[in-house]
Every structure is written in structure tokens, then in C-alpha cells.
């Protein structure tokens, strides 16, 4: 391009070939767009075309003959190539805008979690002491109670349950203010999932829910804090159980995949995965009613819960998200086409160990 412009300036008589100049100018943005989008072959072809145009433009001066004939087709196709790539580029811009919005929402969510964590650290100590006083008082009174006073005993039991519930909420809150270091070690994710499943076996049986595991064998071992990741899978399966309530199926699958697209896939600093990066994906699908669209945006908000009062703290998914993100992964919640919810946990396969 520089050469073409320079030649036009240096040899004003060359400017008479306006068609060649127009073709060249149309090729330049096409070339830039193709380069930006990473289409190497198109970039090379357009580059060759541009060089050809420059040669053609200068041929009467340099070679004494005009070479424009064979390259006329470039004048016709160059503007169309530019328009096509430009349209694609605008699509790309829109996609990046959507991704930017998703990233911003994620940052807001992180900030929200941090605020909750700071608050939790402050209030936990103050709340746990009165809870202990109440609990001990209940126990003293229960011991003094005449055996026949069943109603008062029930009342005391309700009070004790209330203390336990408050303690659970505080315990969940404290998870936010904990040291965020992970106790990482190479681990088999399938084993972690199976151990988590054992912890909810009783709940599954009580609700007559079948757990179907389809775990890909030979997955690379991952750097995991097994205890925390177990907490994630227990939370997710427990949520699925609550969603189904009774008689249904939960499917857990694991697979080794390559990241191709998504809001956090790319080469920018804010992207969590790069294109083509190997990841292990865990999908937990249930046969429940699915999640209403209006809930999906706030599903990770602390204290957001669709469970009846007293059954959930509304922190399970928030904690799970925090843990997965601490592992450099992502967690997504959505609905399956066939109904029921699907939670997808995506974990990086960096610092992996070759499967044995």
C-alpha cells in the first residue's frame, strides 16, 4: 500500500489508472480485517493480490508494458471481500460487547462475594457467641425439664433447630472470608466425583433418585483441592435432588474437550481459556423442572434460593462458583432442551500429569 501511494506521489502520471487505485484501496481494509480475524490463508491471498496490483500499477513505468489485463478480476471482487469481512467484523464487535458485559457482570459478582466475605468475618464471631449461649441454655433447661412435659421439650427442640440453622448460615458465610489458598494436589476428578456421590447417597435413596455416572476414563489428572471440589459436587447434586424432589434421575458426565468458543475464551487477559485449550468438563443434568429464565441471572447471588425457608442458605452455588473460579475454571447453569437443569463445570488441564 505504502509503495502504491508513494509511487502515485512520485509518478503522478500513474494516477491516471483510477480503477487500479480503487481496487488497491478496497483491498487494504479487506487485508486488515482478514489479518485481525486470524484468517491466514485469506490474508496471504489478499496480500498477494495487493502486491500484484502494485506491480500492475507500476508496470508501465517499470516494465514498459501494461499488466492490468489478468488482474482485472481483483477490481470486481475486492470491494465485496471488504464488505463481507467488514460485516463479519461488526458481528465480532457485537460478540465482544456481549462478552465484555458478561465479564463486567462477573466482576460485579466477585465484588459482591468479597463484600459478603468481609461482612461475614465481622459478624460471625459476634453471632456465634450468643448462639452458643442460647444452645447451652436450651440444654440446661432440657435437662431440668420433667419427663412428662412433652410440649416444652418440643419447644426446646425447635429452639435448638433454629440455633443449628443460624449456625449453618454463619458457617456458609464464613466460607467467603476464608483464606483463599487452595490445598492443591494432582487428583483424579472422577474419583473426586465418586467420593462426592457417596456423601449424598443417602439423600438420593431417600428421594428415589437414580444417579447415572458416565465418567470418561483416562482423564488427565488435575491440580485440585479435593476437599473443596467435593464440596462443589455435593452442593450441585444436592441442588439437583431438591429440584427433582422425588423419583427422577441425575446424570453426571465427564469428558476431555477443547475450548472452541464461549464468553471467556480468547486471547485477552480477561479470557479464562484460550482457543483450543484442553479442559475437563463435568456436566450435571437432572430430570427436574428446570430453572425459570428470570432466575438464571441471579442464581449465583449469595442468599438467592428457590428452596423453602430453612432448607437452603442460598450460598451453595455462590460458594461452588467461588471454589471453581479459584481453580481457574468456570461454572455455568442453564436448562436442557429436553427440560431439567444442567450445570457445567469446566476445569483447566494445565500442570497436568500424563494419564497412566
Amino acid at each position, binding site marked *: 500500500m505504502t509503495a502504491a501511494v508513494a509511487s502515485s506521489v512520485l509518478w503522478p502520471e500513474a494516477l491516471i489508472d483510477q480503477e487500479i487505485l480503487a481496487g488497491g484501496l478496497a483491498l487494504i481494509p479487506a487485508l486488515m480485517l482478514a489479518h485481525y480475524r486470524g484468517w491466514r490463508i485469506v490474508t496471504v491471498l489478499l496480500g498477494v493480490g495487493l502486491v500484484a496490483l502494485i506491480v500492475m500499477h507500476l508496470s508501465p513505468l517499470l516494465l514498459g508494458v501494461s499488466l492490468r489485463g489478468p488482474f482485472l478480476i481483483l477490481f470486481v471482487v475486492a470491494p465485496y471481500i471488504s464488505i463481507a469481512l467488514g460485516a463479519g467484523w461488526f458481528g465480532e464487535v457485537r460478540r465482544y460487547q456481549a462478552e465484555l458485559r458478561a465479564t463486567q457482570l462477573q466482576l460485579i459478582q466477585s465484588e459482591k462475594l468479597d463484600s459478603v466475605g468481609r461482612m461475614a468475618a465481622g459478624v*460471625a*464471631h459476634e453471632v*456465634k*457467641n*450468643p*448462639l*452458643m*449461649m*442460647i*444452645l*447451652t*441454655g436450651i*440444654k*440446661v433447661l432440657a*435437662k*431440668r425439664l420433667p419427663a412428662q412435659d412433652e410440649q416444652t421439650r418440643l419447644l426446646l427442640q425447635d429452639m435448638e433447630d433454629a*440455633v443449628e440453622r443460624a*449456625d*449453618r448460615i*454463619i*458457617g456458609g458465610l*464464613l466460607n467467603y472470608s476464608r483464606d483463599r489458598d487452595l490445598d492443591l494436589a494432582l487428583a483424579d476428578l472422577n474419583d473426586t466425583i465418586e467420593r462426592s456421590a457417596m456423601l449424598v447417597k443417602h439423600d438420593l435413596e431417600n428421594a428415589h433418585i437414580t444417579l447415572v455416572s458416565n465418567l470418561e476414563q483416562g482423564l488427565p489428572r488435575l491440580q485440585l483441592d479435593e476437599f473443596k471440589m467435593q464440596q462443589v459436587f455435593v452442593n450441585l447434586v444436592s441442588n439437583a435432588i431438591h429440584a427433582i424432589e422425588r423419583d427422577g434421575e441425575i446424570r453426571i458426565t465427564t469428558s476431555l474437550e477443547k475450548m472452541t468458543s464461549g464468553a471467556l475464551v480468547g486471547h485477552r487477559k480477561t479470557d479464562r481459556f484460550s482457543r483450543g485449550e484442553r479442559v475437563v468438563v463435568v456436566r450435571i443434568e437432572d430430570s427436574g423442572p428446570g430453572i425459570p429464565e428470570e432466575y438464571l441471572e441471579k442464581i449465583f447471588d449469595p442468599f438467592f434460593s428457590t428452596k423453602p425457608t430453612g432448607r437452603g442458605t442460598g450460598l451453595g452455588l455462590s460458594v461452588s462458583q467461588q471454589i471453581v473460579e479459584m481453580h481457574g475454571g468456570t461454572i455455568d447453569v442453564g436448562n436442557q432442551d429436553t427440560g431439567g437443569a444442567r450445570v457445567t463445570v469446566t476445569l483447566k488441564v494445565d500442570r497436568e500429569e500424563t494419564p497412566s
Partner: protein
Amino acid sequence: MRKRRILLVDDEASITRALAMYLTENGDCEVCVENRGSRALAAARSFKPDLIFLDIVMPDADGGALAAEIQSDPALKGTPIVFLTALVSRRETGGATMTIGGYPFLAKPVHPETVLASIGEHARERTN
């Protein structure tokens, strides 16, 4: 066998009052209460407990430093100490025996039955 001598050190008077009541009524214990951390060492010297339940966060003393002082006191050296703390949740201990600075701890809010069990497990046996 004589009663176990238990020293409760916690700045929350309501907790020590209720716990002392429970342990006295339901365990074979003699309980001494101290709500000021700064006076805990003196209370321990005078009461000579078989076990000390020690709050970690108190306005006028640090439970960890107090434990070190108690262990370095010739008259109290070897006295078992169990921390009471609101810093760790009961769920995190997973029911397993965990320690802070080498001392076992109970996470608040702790069931008084658990406190009794802890006395059975950790209190020093004395025949005289």
C-alpha cells in the same frame, strides 16, 4: 474419685454462666469461671484446674498467648487446654480432632454434651 476441676475462660459471661450450670448439674465437675482474659493466669494458679477451656479472641487477652503463658508457668505446666473459638465452624472440623497451635479446639456454638465429652477425653486424672 474427686470431681474434675474445670476452668472456663471466656469474656462472654452468659456463655460461662450457662456452661458452668450445665457442667455442674450434668457432669462430675467443679467449675471456675473467669471472664477477664487478663486474670485467667491468676485464676488458673489459684484454682489448679484439671482442664482449661480457653476462648481465643477476648478483648483484653489473646487465647493463644495465654495458653503459652500457662504452659510456661511451673505450677501449671502440663495443664490440658482446649480452645473454644468462633473463628472456625463446626462443619469445618468434620468431627475430626483438630488442633490450633497444638491444642485441641471446639468450634462455637458447641453443644454442652461435646464439652462434657471433651472433659472426659482431655482432663487430667488426679487421685489426690
